């Protein structure tokens, strides 16, 4: 069953010392850093981030108990809060002295709830009476107040990706006021109210930060509200309600995720999926808000997959305590599902060890393939994931080789979905090319080159990873193989993508292998296999086994209208010298053709009259071109002139007309 775990923890967790009386642990969701502060910093502060770049260790003076500690973006400035009224700053800019300064909050009687860095030198203090937006000037050892806003705050939440702070206001705490920050500016976004299942009387804070999460999903900012079941309504199960906060305009209640159970939950957002962990059952479920449920009302979602636990993680024992023979200990994740940030982290503190671990949560796509039976839905799901290419290709290969599920209609659906994405990418690329070619005249309209995501599965991917090996399978009926290839070609045509030559070749190979020439013939007749020179040559090579291929090939060359030389060659090789000559004359190219080629071919037929005719034709041409019937040395026709004289006599040569 282990291959059913579709969620896993990253391989290299951030390991830190457990919180204790001498050790305080802090987490900064913006930089994803864990701070371990020993004895108020005097015996060391160890900062660990998701990669080594973000890991720092330093000491600082113990000026009292640390309440909150965070680096600004890029580890430039450290902010430490030790008292309810002020925050201390230490400059960490390289080649700068470690200058320190302190800032008290402006509002009187206010106490600081926390602070967030919105830039390398911009910080927001959140107090119980409002917010204050500062710029830190490290060289002047001071802060400049950029803006402030007073409002009663119960608690706050920060979304680092969008630099949006969400404040909980009013007595019940259910009116949320978002603020957005961007390089020195602060803008107030429309506030909104979360509908509470029960309105307590008298009014008291009822909405806690545990029930709210902020995250960006598919590039949009969402506030997720975990709505526990209420006894008053008839829905006994908890659900997650999503509010979309657009940059402009007002918020919208957009999606409802049905959890179908009750209890304690934790939320994560990974790869645009909402992951909900249920503590008592030790399982997690995922939701894709773009996946429409056919049997549900609009925007009500059921879990994409059945609930599964996170893949067990084994903590390797390292250091002195490690006994080489002892296997890695499976981590007991039951302890806590403590999510500090919906961004991508889950944290578990393992009691048997004296350390804590911070993991990234990852979605493992291969197990989803077996859990989601509906292939169309599976494709929709996979196409929106980050590392989906190989999984999608393996699904395609499996679908064709398994042969049990759904058959061609399913194959068609899957191809259509893939090609839709492929088409959208090609179109974007096209518009980009056109835009850049039309010149950079309008700098404002400078477009970005469209990003080719993994979901773009083009014909060569499909050919290399799926179709070519599939077509060689001995145990699959050739009928099915051909049907699949045609289905793929149909799907490409449906979205007007030019089919690559190698796909046609594959079809032709299959048809020829099984002697299905008449089928091939009909495909060509309806131009299903588009004209091209290579295809025409391929057909020509089939002539010996299937004579009509000759005509098909010539027609194709003719339609191409750029292959007149090839047509002449083909006709000459079949000793149709007159036919070749007629043809080249009809397209007006007979002025500069090689006389020698035609005379050679005519000689080979051993038909003397034919040779005479051809010879005379070229004499007349020479006459017209140069006013002289004889061949010029460059044409290398001496041999034929000798032969002509030998057979028909010298007097048969055309005389030059002298005026």
């Amino acid at each position, binding site marked *: 069953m282990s291959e059913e775990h579709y969620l896993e923890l990253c391989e290299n967790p951030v390991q830190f010392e457990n919180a204790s009386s001498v050790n305080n642990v802090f987490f900064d969701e913006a930089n994803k850093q864990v701070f371990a502060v020993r004895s108020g910093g005097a015996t060391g502060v160890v900062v660990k981030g998701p990669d080594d770049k973000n890991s720092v260790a330093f000491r600082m003076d113990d000026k009292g108990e640390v309440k909150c500690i965070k680096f600004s973006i890029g580890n430039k400035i450290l902010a430490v809060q030790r008292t309810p009224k002020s925050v201390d700053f230490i400059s960490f800019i390289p080649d700068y002295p470690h200058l320190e300064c302190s800032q008290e909050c402006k509002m009187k009687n206010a106490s600081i709830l926390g602070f967030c860095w919105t830039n390398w030198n911009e910080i927001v203090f959140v107090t119980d009476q409002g917010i204050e937006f500062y710029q830190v000037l490290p060289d002047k050892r001071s802060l400049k107040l950029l803006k402030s806003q007073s409002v009663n705050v119960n608690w706050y939440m920060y979304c680092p990706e969008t630099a949006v702070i969400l404040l909980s206001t009013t007595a019940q705490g259910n009116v949320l006021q978002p603020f957005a920050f961007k390089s020195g500016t602060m803008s107030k976004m429309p506030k909104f109210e979360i509908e509470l299942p029960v309105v307590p009387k008298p009014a008291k804070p009822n909405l806690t930060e545990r029930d709210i999460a902020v995250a960006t999903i598919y590039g949009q900012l969402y506030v997720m509200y975990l709505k526990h079941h209420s006894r008053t309504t008839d829905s006994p199960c908890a659900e997650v309600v999503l509010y979309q906060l657009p940059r402009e305009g007002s918020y919208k209640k957009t999606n409802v995720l049905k959890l179908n159970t009750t209890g304690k939950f934790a939320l994560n957002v990974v790869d645009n999926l909402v992951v909900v962990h249920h503590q008592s059952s030790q399982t997690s479920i995922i939701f894709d808000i773009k996946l429409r449920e056919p049997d549900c009302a609009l925007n009500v979602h059921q879990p994409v997959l059945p609930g599964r636990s996170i893949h067990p993680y084994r903590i390797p024992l390292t250091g002195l305590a490690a006994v080489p023979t002892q296997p890695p200990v499976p981590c007991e994740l039951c302890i806590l599902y403590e999510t500090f940030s919906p961004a991508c982290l889950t944290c578990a503190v393992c009691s048997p060890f004296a350390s804590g671990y911070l993991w990234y949560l990852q979605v493992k796509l291969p197990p989803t393939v077996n859990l989601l039976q509906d292939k169309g839905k599976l494709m929709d799901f996979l196409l929106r994931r980050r590392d989906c290419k190989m999984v999608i290709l393996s699904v395609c290969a499996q679908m064709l080789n398994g042969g049990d599920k759904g*058959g*061609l*209609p399913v194959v*068609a659906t899957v191809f259509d979905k893939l090609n839709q994405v492929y088409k959208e990418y090609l179109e974007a690329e096209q518009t980009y090319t056109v835009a850049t070619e039309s010149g950079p005249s309008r700098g404002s309209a400078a477009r970005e080159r469209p990003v080719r995501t993994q979901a773009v599965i083009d014909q060569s991917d499909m050919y290399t990873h799926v179709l070519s090996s599939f077509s060689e399978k001995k145990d699959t009926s050739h*009928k*099915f193989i051909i*049907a699949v290839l*045609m*289905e793929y*070609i*149909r799907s490409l*045509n*449906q979205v007007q993508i030019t089919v690559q030559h190698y796909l046609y070749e594959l079809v032709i190979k299959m048809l020829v292998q099984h002697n299905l020439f*008449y*089928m091939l*013939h*009909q495909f*060509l*007749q*309806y*131009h*299903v296999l588009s004209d091209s020179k290579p295809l025409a040559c391929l057909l020509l090579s089939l002539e010996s086994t299937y004579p*009509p291929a000759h*005509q*098909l090939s*010539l*027609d194709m060359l*003719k*339609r191409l*209208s750029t292959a007149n030389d090839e047509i002449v060659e083909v006709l000459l090789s079949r000793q149709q010298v*007159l*036919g070749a000559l*007629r043809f080249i004359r*009809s397209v007006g190219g007979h002025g500069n053709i090689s006389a020698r080629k035609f005379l050679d071919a005519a000689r080979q037929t051993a038909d003397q009259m034919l040779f005479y005719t051809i010879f005379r034709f070229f004499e007349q041409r020479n006459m017209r071109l140069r006013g002289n019937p004889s061949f010029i040395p460059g044409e290398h026709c001496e041999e034929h002139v000798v032969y002509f004289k030998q057979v028909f006599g010298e007097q048969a040569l055309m005389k030059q007309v002298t005026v």
Partner: protein
Amino acid sequence: MISPRMASGMQEKQYTPSLLSFFVYNPSFGSREGEEEKKILFYHPSEVEKNEKIRNVGLCEAIVQFTRTFCPTKPAKSLHTQKNRQFFFEAEDSFWIVMVVRNPMVEKPNKDGRPPTIEYQEEEILDTVYGAVLRECYSMYKLFNGTFGRAMEAGGVELLMQKLDKFFYRYLQTLHLQSCDLLDVFGGIAFFPLDKMTYLKIQSFVNRVEESLSLIKYTAFLYNDQLIWSGLEQDDMRILYKYLTTSLFPRHSEPELAGRDSPLRPEVAGNLLHYGRFLTGPANLKDPEAKFRFPRIFVNTEDSYEELHLIVYKAMSAAVCFMISASVELTREFCEQLDGLVGPQLTLLASDICEQYNVNRRISGPDKEPQFKFIYFNHMNLAEKSTIHMRKTASVSLTSVHPDLMKILGDINCDFARVDEDEEIIVKAMTDYWVVGKKSDQRELYVILNQKNANLIEVNGSSSHMFSWLYLLIPTLSTTFSSWTERNKGKNCTKKRERKRDGERAMDCFTTLKLSALQGVMTASV
């Protein structure tokens, strides 16, 4: 079966060619003296006296034997006499089929009550045409009965004679010798013009049906009596196509046209409306008495020799033939399953094709009577196209030109058949008609022009123009050929020519086909 036709003014009577007799024999069956009757496997008309039958068969045998001495591999194919013409065809080893056709004749009344003089027009009928008709008789027999040899193996001479009797008794009544012409020589298939995407959809449909109903071995798809897809090999399809278009479809189109037996009915499963119905097998699936028996056909008789059930299913103008191995018994359940699966899809597909077809027609403008008529045939894929022939009915195929012109076409065709080279022949016929025939590799094109006061040079000038584009012209042939020319007419006429005689304009238009062809039109090349 004499159908007299009144001719100009006088009390002259014209008789068209008609079938005198038709027989099948095998000389090896009665080689001993006195057993000659055993050679005869089938004889029409059956009421002919025994000795005459023996005499006639003997004569044919003798002629064939005699001519063999000149060329052992190619014995005589026909015998011309004043009153009739006999055609010999060795269908299988030692099995001969002979057809005797009475020459057309004119009966001129004489004065004074003397018996009328009869003039036989022995040169009016063509060997190629009736030779082809005879071969087709055999092919049709073989399609429904298998080879003579197999019948002999299965049940000896008795079975073979039974089969011959049963089949030809009815089949010969449907032969209309008076209206046979060049098209019978070709025995071609009309392909339905279609764009690539719709064609691929049909492919997809066929593949899906064959996948979900794995009993189906071969499928053929037709629209408007024109072929779109054949899973059968070319030769088998050729004869099946003939059967479908000249016998089965016309039989069923008449009740449709009459408006009764409206096939629209709600489908029980899925509650979908569809127009699908069986043309062979059960007329009504709901009928508890319905019989699930389908005609059987024999294909690939050269190698695998397969016997198949022929299910023909139709929705609107789209008809699909499903062929299933005869060893499988077809049940009500299967037919219901097929009806449920194919009916809705085919209805949808048929309306798709219809829409597409109408769009194409609208693009190419209204269908006017073109200034010229043509027959096109490609030996390579058997594609044929004729603007001379009207829609075929069950009884007779009508042509829109005088039989004399048709005869000229046949003559030209005979000339073409004699040599391998590409050729072009121009014939001046009576009443301002010109007939131009052109053969290029595997293709033949015959055009009938009505160009007043035109001379050979003019006709040749315009026709060489039009044939030099034969290659390019081909892709467009399958669309409404005439409409293309109509559409391009305007463009061209403004460009050149002051003289605008009708015929010339038509020719002119013909040459403009190259334009339309270059536009890479959306059709099949035939």
